């Protein structure tokens, strides 16, 4: 970025609420998957003689958003008519809020950068418009446009930031943090691709160090976060070039063309809409009582930033893990249930357990949920207490990695208890060597060429052998022990080749147990041989 000029960015975000009903009528607001024009009524169709009625839940959601963004809540607020003509605007005006927004004067601290406090100018309520679907003409015929009114009247909350953003990184952080907050307080899905979260940006530049605002350009039609950053980068470069060439930036609205990668002028100041705002006469002003605000505030969940900090402190989680866990409120809730379901543990143990739980949630759980499109971990078949069992067993190395994943997969699919699955599938890790060695020997017998390779210096051959043992015992993870055992056998190495298996075994066992005498007694035990073992004799397996 140019150091001569400073960028000033403000964002206007429209957040669609996931209320039961539309903003001003009782039609269902769940328009996404409905057949066209089935979520309509005389009011949202703007038939003659119809009148709006306020959706009180939407008002509460607006207050929720304002409080989550540290805003003040107006004691009295009102609606206004925003007048302009367009086919998707059924009444010929949109009921919105002009000069007395329901929430105002808030802020958001950007995560990871506490010194970046972005001012929130206002949060206000309005209604969405119908959807226009343009069908291009074929064979030179003119195209036509279809209108689906399902979306008209769905509640929209507009969140307007102060022009405090300075970099596209900040913009990205602001957007994803705002999305996370919206989902956390459960008022909307905040999904850009679905259209439930829409961004417009206002961007201007000024000489570095100046405090005066330059002419601002409004950018619209950015449909993904990536588009926002690309559009802003383009626009900043365009404005900088313009100014350096001695021109003045024209205050206007520009549309982002994602395909070509440029912003295109849409409206100049002369053509700007005069919305002729006036107070909505069909809706009396709303008086918002302090007790309602207090009630909503008390029901707000712990917000992501605070929760992440707490996870790091209370559970000793690394920041990355904590951030990932707390990015979804339900996952964070689930995590807490898992760690709270185990009994008292020493702090170090708890920390390890918490980290392991985080791994499973951020890893396997996320992967499975992604595959089948589940968004709420509580909707999966694995109960928190159940996951706790699996995490415990895995942490104590009673299962190996692959085994645990297999158990997890079965639990996810069927909801069965961890212990049941482990038992059914015989995935109990065999951690002591007694059951392993006969198998190990069988494998060695069966794979002479791999053994030769290993002895010949190809160390990686041991993996193959280990894998064969694992397959044979269906013990999916004792790898460290097995590997240790085998390596010890052969690495003692050059000069041991040709020695009987038993000697090699004893030699290895000596290395593993630390002394020869113990090696002999352990070997006896392990191989279930009843008589005395004499190192130099041939072995037979009993």
């Amino acid at each position, binding site marked *: 970025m140019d150091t001569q000029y400073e960028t000033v960015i403000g964002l206007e975000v429209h957040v669609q609420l996931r209320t039961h009903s539309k903003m001003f009528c009782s039609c269902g607001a769940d328009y996404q998957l409905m057949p066209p024009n089935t979520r309509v009524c005389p*009011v949202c*169709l*703007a*038939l*003659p*003689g*119809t*009148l*709006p*009625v*306020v959706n009180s839940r939407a008002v509460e959601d607006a207050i929720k958003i304002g409080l989550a963004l540290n805003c003040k809540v107006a004691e009295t607020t009102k609606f206004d*008519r925003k*007048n302009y*003509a367009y*086919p998707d605007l*059924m*009444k*010929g*005006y949109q009921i919105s809020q002009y000069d007395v927004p329901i929430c105002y004067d808030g802020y958001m601290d950007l995560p990871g950068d506490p010194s970046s406090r972005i001012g929130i100018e206002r949060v206000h309520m309005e209604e969405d418009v119908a959807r226009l679907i343009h069908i291009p003409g074929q064979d030179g015929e003119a195209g036509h446009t279809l209108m689906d009114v399902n979306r008209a009247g769905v509640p929209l909350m507009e969140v307007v930031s102060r022009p405090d953003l300075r970099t596209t990184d900040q913009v990205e952080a602001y957007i994803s943090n705002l999305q996370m907050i919206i989902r956390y307080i459960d008022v909307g899905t905040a999904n850009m691709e679905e259209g439930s979260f829409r961004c417009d940006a206002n961007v201007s530049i000024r000489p570095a160090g100046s405090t005066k605002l330059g002419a601002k350009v409004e950018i619209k039609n950015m449909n993904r976060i990536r588009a926002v950053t690309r559009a802003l980068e383009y626009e900043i470069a365009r404005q900088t070039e313009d100014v350096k060439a001695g021109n003045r930036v024209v205050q206007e609205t520009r549309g982002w063309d994602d395909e070509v990668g440029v912003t295109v002028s849409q409206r100049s100041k002369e053509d700007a809409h*005069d919305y*002729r*705002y*006036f107070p909505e*006469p*069909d*809706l*009396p002003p709303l008086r918002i009582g302090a007790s309602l605000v207090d009630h909503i505030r008390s029901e707000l969940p712990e917000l992501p930033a605070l929760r992440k900090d707490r996870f790091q402190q209370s559970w000793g989680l690394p920041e990355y893990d904590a951030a990932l866990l707390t990015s979804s409120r339900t996952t964070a809730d689930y995590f807490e249930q898992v760690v709270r379901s185990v009994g008292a543990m020493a702090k170090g143990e708890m920390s390890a357990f918490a980290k392991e739980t985080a791994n499973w949630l951020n890893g396997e759980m996320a992967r499975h949920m992604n595959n089948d499109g589940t968004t709420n971990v509580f909707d999966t078949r694995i109960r928190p207490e159940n996951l706790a069992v699996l995490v415990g067993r895995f942490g104590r190395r009673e299962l190996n990695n692959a085994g645990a994943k297999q158990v997890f997969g079965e639990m996810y699919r069927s909801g069965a208890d961890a212990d049941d699955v482990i038992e059914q599938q015989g995935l109990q890790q065999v951690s002591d060597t007694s059951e392993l060695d006969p198998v190990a020997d069988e494998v060695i017998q069966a794979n002479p060429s791999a053994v030769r390779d290993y002895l010949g210096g190809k160390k990686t051959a041991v993996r193959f052998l280990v894998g064969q043992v694992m397959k044979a015992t269906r013990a999916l993870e004792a790898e460290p022990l097995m590997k240790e055992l085998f390596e010890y056998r052969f690495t003692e190495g050059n000069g041991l080749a040709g020695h009987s298996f038993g000697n090699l075994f004893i030699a290895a066992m000596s290395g593993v147990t630390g002394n020869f005498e113990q090696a002999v007694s352990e070997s006896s035990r392990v191989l279930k041989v009843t008589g005395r073992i004499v190192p130099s004799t041939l072995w037979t397996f009993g």
Partner: protein
Amino acid sequence: MGSSTENSAFFPTRNPWDTGRVPGGSSGGSAAAVSAGAAPFALGTDTGGSIRQPASFCGVTGLKPTYGRVSRYGLVAYASSLDQVGPIARDAADCALILQSIAGHDSRDATSLPDAVPDYSAALTGDISGLRLGVPSEYFAEGMDAGVRAAVTAAIDQLAALGAEIREVSLPTTQYALACYYIIAPSECSANLARYDGVKYGYSHQGDGDMWEAMERTRQHGFGPEVKRRIMLGAFALSSGYYDAYYHKAQQVRTLIRQDFAHVFEEVDALAAPVSPVVAFPIGERTDDPVRMYLVDVYTLPVNMAGLPAMSVPCGFSNGLPVGLQLIGPHLSEDRLLNIAHTYQQATEWHRERPGI
């Protein structure tokens, strides 16, 4: 819209008392139908006088309820903060019956009042002794038709004879009501009529050109001249740079008008005044001069500004044409007004007169 029902989409309605004259407006059709005996009663809508004035011109009884008393859901909106539906009938007793049916809270109208609906018929006691009746001096200004003045004055005397105590009162903001109305109503109207673009329903003018041209043609042919006049007035009054000077200022004046009435109703229980300074005028007489047309409503407009209930009660004739007495009350005093009218109608015969038609 308008004060003469000459702006109808169909054709002008004629006054049954003299078919060369207007029945008043804008609910002139309703008033004429009742007057001519074509219907026992009718509904009208009163935004600036549109029930009372035609009732007065046609010699029938009309009532505009308190704003919010009757639901506006289902009423094609003109000026949202002023519109009210009300009955037009042969007498106050009939009006009471009709009001009983249509009054009450409607959850589909956010401006609908939650107050309980009294028994209007039971309120018709026929006794107004001790009633404090105010006569606002501003409503008896110069330029009033002499016959109208005489009939209204006689009616007030009659009410005194029936037991009312007459007091002179003053409503200084009366002179501002006309200007105030003709900013607020057209402003709201300009937005309320924006939906009639031929895209979704209703009249749609087909032809060549793009979508915008089609919309323009629809509105050009679909709206009459008076409606267009008001839409333009309203859009102008709301436009950037003018909002403060016009719409905002008009709303502030409106508050003063309300306060004026509230103040007066501390001293009196109701007001008596003319409905209009004139009687029914010839068809076509005022169509070339919109302001002259607007002036017939000077006494009815302030009532809508304040959201008050009011009635028009036949009280005599001037040159063979009906004259209406206007009764105005505080908010939700329909029962009181109906009783005053009913009592008057027990002692007089004006409401029984029928046109020769």
